[in-house]
Every structure is written in C-alpha cells, then in structure tokens.
C-alpha cells in the first residue's frame, strides 16, 4: 500500500514500467533541463552546488526544502568531525575486485585522488566510502530489479581511509549505465557514489563520480541538477595513464574538495 502510493524511481519487481512517473519523454525532460540552463545563464549568480529544487529530477518535487537554508555560525561540535581508524576499515576493503573467490566481470580500473579542504590542506586519515553498480549496470540492492545480471563476485561496496596527504585509492570494475523510472527510457550515466567526511562536521558530503565523455550527461537530470557547467565538470574523473598499470587495469584520477578548513573555522583573511 505504502510502496504503491510512493512516487519512486527505482526499477522494482511487479511495478508496471509505465507508472505515472515514467510517462514523460526524454524530450520533455531535456526541454526542462534546457530551460533551467538558460535561466541560469541569464542570472548573474554563480552556483557551484546542485539545486535542491530541480523538477526534471521528479523525486525532488516533494523532497526539497522550500524555505531558504538558514545561515548559522557553526558551534563547537560542528567544527569537529568523527574519527575513523584501522579498527573501522580493513585495508582490503579498498579493492572491490577481491571480495569473492572469483574475479568480477568487467573493465578493471583504479580510481584514486586526493580529498582536500577548501584551503587546499589534505583531509588525512578520514573515511571514504563508495558504492556502485556492476559492469552490467546492476546493483546488488534488493530493490534494483533491472534486467541485467548480478555478478556473484562483485558487491560494488568499498571503503578506505585517506593517507596523510589526503590520498584515497580503490580498485574496482567500471560500472555500467542503468535505467531508472524518472521518465520513459531514462538512463543514468555510469557513476560511482562517494561518501566523504572532512575535518569538520560541516564538510560532510555525498556525491557521484562520473567518467569522461559519457553520452548520457546531457540527458541526465541528476547530473544536470548542478546547473553550472564548470561545477558539473568537477564531478568527472580524468583518465590518467600514470594511474593505469601494465596489463592490470586502466586508471582514473579524481580529486575532491570539501567545504571547511583544516581544524577550526577561520576567515580566509586570517590564513596565509
């Protein structure tokens, strides 16, 4: 009952493909995206984060706050962050290709980069979590019923701690694009979800990393919810042959910048 009444965008069992939600055409969604892009180009204010109110991504309609965010000065607790250590994360969790007895199917890749504070200082010893679909575009999540095969040798879940210089490193399989029910014939560009902590509570962020040159970028309302072109580009990893290793895997580099500073908040003016 509850599930039936929900506006949802996941491919689920027993739900007709032509739910209310999936009736809009890609053309209609793309036209909305173009409109919002045009409005943004005409407005003078630069945006670097996604719009919370972004109707082409239908599930935002009832889930975005309508009131402005309230500007607050962070209190002590918000200037500190939870700590994670070797007790929390096994070093092997960074390699998603060795979690089962067999090899997962797909293009083996390394994804690496640095997690930085806004002042350029590294976020050291902090938790990075990733999750993703397999090479066929299928998540092991029970609610994902996309008709692509599950890979018994791939969970798509990884964790690591950044090193003292802010570096993270994962070995995984390049995820495939997958369909969803935002509109008819809706497909997400291939992506890896990243969950990040900084040196302050207020740096907490979840985002998605994409692969260069994906033909689905223009069509995807989640990627396009970041209206600024340069800001969207910051979500795209770079192919890096230095990361690629001989006869092993191709390599991608992606740096992540969090808001917040090394320790306590300071005005940029106070820092050198």
């Amino acid at each position, binding site marked *: 009952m509850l599930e039936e009444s929900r506006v949802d965008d996941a491919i689920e069992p027993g739900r007709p493909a032509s739910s209310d939600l999936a009736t809009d055409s890609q053309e209609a969604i793309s036209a909305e995206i173009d409109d919002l892009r045009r409005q943004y180009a005409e407005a003078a204010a630069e945006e670097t984060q996604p719009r919370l109110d972004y109707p082409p991504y239908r599930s935002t309609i009832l889930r975005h706050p309508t009131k402005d965010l309230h500007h607050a000065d962070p209190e002590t607790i918000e200037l500190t962050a939870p700590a994670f250590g070797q007790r929390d994360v096994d070093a092997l969790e960074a390699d998603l290709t060795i979690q089962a007895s067999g090899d997962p199917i797909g293009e083996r890749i390394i994804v690496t980069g640095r997690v930085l504070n806004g002042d350029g200082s590294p976020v050291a010893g902090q938790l990075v979590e990733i999750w993703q679909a397999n090479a066929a575009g299928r998540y092991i999540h029970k609610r994902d019923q996309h008709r692509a095969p599950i890979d018994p040798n791939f969970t798509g879940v990884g964790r690591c701690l950044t090193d003292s210089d802010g570096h993270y490193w994962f070995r995984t399989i390049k995820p495939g694009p997958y369909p969803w029910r935002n509109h008819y014939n809706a497909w997400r560009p291939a992506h890896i979800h990243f969950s990040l902590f900084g040196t302050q509570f207020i740096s907490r962020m*979840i985002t998605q990393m994409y692969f260069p040159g994906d033909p689905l970028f223009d069509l995807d309302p989640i990627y396009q919810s970041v209206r600024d072109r340069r800001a969207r580009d910051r979500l795209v990893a770079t192919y890096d042959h230095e990361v690629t290793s001989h006869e092993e895997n191709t390599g991608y580099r992606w740096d992540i910048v969090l808001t917040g500073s090394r320790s306590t908040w300071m005005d940029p003016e106070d820092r050198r």
Partner: protein
Amino acid sequence: MSAQRLVATPGQTIGPFFGFALPYEGGDQLVQLEHPDGVRLTGLVLDGDGDPVPDAMIEIWQPDAHGRIEPRPGSLRRDGYAFTGWGRAATDITGRYAFTTVRPGPTNEGKLPFFAITVFARGLTNRLFTRAYLPASSDAIATDRLLGSLPEDRRRTLIATEDGSELRFNVRLQGEEETVFLAFPGEAP
C-alpha cells in the same frame, strides 16, 4: 595575505541504492541498549505531502553526556564501550529512524546541547544539515544564538520533544512545518 580557496566539489543525491552499502550493524547504537543513561532518539522523515520517506539516511554527531568531544575511531565496528559520538541510521519502510545514544551535554558553559544532524535521501540532490536540540526552558531557547534568531514556529522544528525515555525529532523536508536546515560559512550555493 588571503589564501587561495578551492571551489568545493558539488554534492549529488544519495540515490535509492545506498542500503546495501552505507547502513551497517550497530550504526544506530552509539551506546548499548542497556546503558543506564541510554536514550532513544527517534522520528520520522516526511516529504511535502506529509508522507514518510522510506529511503532517507540520518547521521548524528554529538558530544558525550558531559559535553566532551573526543573523536575516537570505532564507529563502524563498535566495541561496546568507547563512545564515538557518531551514528548512522537509514529510515525504515514507515520513514522512521532511531538511535540509541546518550543526551549530549553542553560543549561550552551556557550553551544549549544539541545533536548535529545530516539528512540524505533519494530525491534530495544534496545533504541537509540541521540540529536537534534537547528540550529547554523558554528563556534558554530565546537566548540561544540560533534558536533565538528564529520565529517561534520555526524554532520549534529544531527542538526534540520528550516522551518518557525517548526523544522525538521529526525531519520535514518540505511544507508547513518544514524543518529549519542550515547553511554554514564557506558554503557556496
């Protein structure tokens, strides 16, 4: 001389499929159920129609009962003793989240204690920050830096209500009783 500031990477929605990746056993138990000062912090995440959001995730970060902040590792594999101050819980099919924890103490003399809260959900393009304050006297509320700056009906959305050994705090993403969500300095739109 002002330092160069890097532009932050954009956030993106947590999506529908985080359930197999982010929530973990014990994530919602900052202290053991039988802890003498244990309290349940629970509530619903609701959308603009007042319907429950069954695919949201809530994280809390807090000082201990004495107001001390001692970030300790071990949140992902709790040992049952160390208080790490951090927890994570996904909402269930009814939109409810729940934590077992202790009441945060004031971090500074005269400050009202609160749980710092992060909200994620499918359909939410970026995380939201808010605070769940412990119930307090109206005088204390009026002089609090944040609560005092809000009109009465808005500040109410940031204060947990007491029900026996339970603290109730609902998160309304949209609508009449919409929760106050926070932006901090250094955050660009």
